[in-house]
């Protein structure tokens, strides 16, 4: 949250915090309910990660105050996302580069 936040603004935010808590609890119930349907892996993965992304975004936006944060924090986060994506791509692509795997001449 920006450093110029005042007590009056915070009072308004408290109601939002409670609403976000309700949303997070409801989404947790939905995730578990969908898991009990025992869908095949691809739709199950998409639903689970989609709901987890919404929950994570709610926590980051409201509890971590990203919704009203300064540019420097976003700049830092953009770099983090890029490095994380590179990390994932490098690791997962290395799956196709194992000893005993099919090697194209």
């Amino acid at each position, binding site marked *: 949250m920006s*450093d110029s936040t005042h007590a009056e603004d915070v009072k308004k935010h408290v109601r939002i915090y409670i609403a976000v*808590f309700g949303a997070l609890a409801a989404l947790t119930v939905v995730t*578990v309910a969908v898991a009990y349907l025992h869908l095949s892996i691809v739709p199950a993965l998409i639903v689970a990660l989609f709901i987890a992304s919404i929950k994570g975004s709610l926590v980051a936006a409201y*509890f971590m105050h990203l919704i009203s944060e300064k540019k420097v924090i976003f700049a830092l986060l953009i770099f983090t996302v890029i490095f994380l994506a590179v990390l994932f791509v490098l690791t997962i692509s290395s799956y196709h580069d194992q000893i005993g795997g099919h090697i194209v001449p």
Partner: protein
Amino acid sequence: MDIPYTVTARPDTGVYNAKVGIWLFLASEVMLFGGLFSAYIFLRIGAPAWPGMLGGQLYKTSFDILNVPIGTFNTMVLIASSVTIVMSWASLMMNDFGKYKRYMGLTILCGLAFLVVKAFEYNAKFSHGLFPAEGNFLAIYFTLTGLHGLHVVGGIIVNSYFWGPGSKMWKTDPKRFTNRIEVAGLYWHFVDIVWIFLFPTIYLL
């Protein structure tokens, strides 16, 4: 010598220094957990069955080996603790130190409850001979949840300091203390977000 910009925003960044510091730290934490999550994906796509053969028994789904209701309960506990810690910060912003103490106390209790439940879960695995060395599923399960648990322990230690002896700063430098609680909260929310992704990945898929 005073540490600069602990209360007021630094002109070039627009935020106080500790906030940039904690976000940089959290960026490094994203890479730490990101490495382990990518290891999980790597192990999983190469596995003929998941969780697979563990301790001489075949587990077809994670439901067969992990307790989903208990995991769900722990998710709720951690989400509740995220609310209480942001409420503790909001209480300080509204000049209510008594409320701050109550909410921060609740946050610490939620953190401890999470660890106690996790300890019961671990014990249930160990008592059935399910140790990390039994297979890839258990290895990545204990590594990810263990590292997350250590982060919860770290958060409880810091939050307990700010609930107890560290709270004296409220009398001498209230704005700086409020900022410290915001920073402690940012860390705690990050630990919550990690669990939000960890729970479905390990328990439900």
